[in-house]
């Protein structure tokens, strides 16, 4: 895109005629922060779905255990009514959160305003995603929901194995507390990655300790969803993924506006240590992560917490004292999490911090 020439920016903010600052502030408070960059259509769909599911769980939390899994599908290549020709139209979901939604696959608009459903016998989220492939819709975007497990599985990459989980069991309703970041990261690791049976499926062959090609991206998306829907009280803080800055690309950033309107933030640089490369190369990769994280801290003064999280897929759970010492010199918090697979157990106690 070739934008027009930038107009000179007035140093004094002005309020457009007919608008008032409190009205604009009120709209901003209701709608929230938004993302760093505009979303593609299928990303809008995933966002709207997850927001809807969060509200649906709020209203059906106690009854959810008895409700069958269901799934929303968004296909940009055809009209919503043409995705499942035998489907029947349902009442708009956009402002309705009824419990009787289980046991069906819904072709949906980006905002769930219009949905067409077909019955399914699939009993789990992976089975629902398999049904998608069988229907020739593997390239579509889908969000499968397991009410019983209070989880959703998001499929957006054309490969059901790249799906990432989203938990909907909130950790309290308080505003986000940065001092708890370490505990949240530890909880995320234990539930999602500590073993190959965890919620985030990054191993293509666990018994051979073979990682998927895009394991790092999958962890990034999963960790973002974990913070967004399990940890952060709605709109109390903002989490972004892959933020472009002068110092490079940040993996994950959380920012919060404090009561005095100043900002407080955390940056997390994520690295996956691979079993197929040498220890020296893995160390270089880890140190590169420390350098990246340190650069971000230098470029803005609101980043109070800087983490490098190394998800360790090497074959031996060995500490990395050189990286630990280097991180200390750069004032970066170092965390290494060894991911177990059969015959490759965790042996170091703690997270090598």
């Amino acid at each position, binding site marked *: *895109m*070739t*934008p*027009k020439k930038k*107009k000179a920016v007035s140093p004094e*903010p002005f*309020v*457009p*005629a*007919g*608008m008032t*600052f409190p*009205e*604009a*502030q*009120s*709209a*901003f408070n*209701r*709608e929230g*922060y*938004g*993302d*760093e*960059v*505009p*979303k593609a*259509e299928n990303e*809008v769909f995933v966002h709207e779905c997850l927001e809807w599911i969060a509200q649906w769980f709020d209203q059906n939390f106690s009854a959810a255990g008895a409700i069958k899994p269901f799934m929303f599908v968004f296909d*940009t*290549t*055809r*009209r*919503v009514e*043409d995705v499942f020709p035998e489907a029947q139209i349902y009442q*708009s979901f*956009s*402002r309705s959160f009824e419990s009787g939604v289980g046991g069906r696959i819904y072709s949906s*608009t*980006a*905002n*769930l*305003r*219009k949905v067409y459903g077909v019955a399914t016998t699939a009993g789990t989220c992976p089975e629902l995603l398999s049904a998608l492939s069988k229907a020739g819709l593997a390239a579509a975007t889908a969000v499968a929901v397991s009410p019983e497990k209070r989880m959703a599985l998001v499929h957006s990459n054309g490969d059901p194995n790249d799906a990432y989980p989203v938990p909907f069991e909130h950790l309290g309703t308080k505003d986000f507390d940065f001092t708890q970041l370490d505990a949240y990261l530890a909880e995320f690791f234990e539930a999602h990655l500590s073993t190959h049976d965890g919620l985030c499926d990054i191993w293509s062959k666990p018994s051979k300790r073979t990682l998927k090609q895009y394991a790092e991206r999958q962890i990034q998306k999963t960790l973002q969803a974990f913070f967004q829907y399990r940890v952060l009280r709605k709109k109390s803080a*903002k989490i972004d993924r892959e933020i472009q800055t002068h110092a490079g690309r940040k993996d994950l950033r959380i*920012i919060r*506006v404090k009561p005095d*309107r100043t*900002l407080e*933030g955390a940056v997390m640089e994520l690295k996956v240590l691979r079993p197929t490369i040498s220890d020296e190369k893995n160390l270089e990769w880890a140190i590169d992560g420390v350098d990246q994280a340190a650069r971000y801290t230098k470029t*803005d003064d*609101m980043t109070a917490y800087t983490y490098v999280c190394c998800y360790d897929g090497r074959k031996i759970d060995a500490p990395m004292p050189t990286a630990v010492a280097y991180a200390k010199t750069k004032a970066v918090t170092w965390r290494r999490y060894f991911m177990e697979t059969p015959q490759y157990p965790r042996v170091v106690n703690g997270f090598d911090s």
Partner: protein
Amino acid sequence: MRLDSSRSSGFSEEHRLAWSLFLARGCEKTGLFPLALQTFHRLIYFANCLAEVYEYAPPSQLVMKQKWGPYYPRAQADLDQLVIMGLIDIDKLRWEQSEGRTAKLAEFSITRAGYALCTELSEAGAWFKEAEEFLFDVCSAYSTIRDENADKATDVDLTYSQRGVPQGGVIVFREAARNLSAQGAKFFEEVAPSLAVPNRQHQLRLYMRFLEGRAA
């Protein structure tokens, strides 16, 4: 050709038709179908004035202020042509007389062929791709307004409701200073904290949220 480099006078007939067709596609993807004719013209109006937020040039940069809302004769002719071409479906067509005027009322939706043509066009060039994305964003933002407030959103829009313009008066918003809607959407950059400046897509949503607050 790019969307930003095509001035309004430079919109060929094909580009105008594509603009209306992409708007129809945006309505399909955001569940606004079947679309009342009046709503179609409201969306055309919002697309015309909010294109400035994306630094794009829309097909028209003026609107006549009327009691029943914006109406664009040329866009109506384009829509009729798309119906004849089998790219848009028309339903519940009727004429109604009220308040001294005769109005055509109908509901529209995009046909399978129309949708397929959109897919083909958006792969054919940057102009079409940008128009498709922008018009989806406009429809997506508009669809966040509750149905009961949607009709009123234009009435309270900053450009449409600006002071000093009587019913029947024409508002030209070719100059940025006269396009209060785009100014309003961009104003959210000032409202947000420095590291959370809303992107242009989000500015549209925030602006619609603002209009809904006024319309409610």
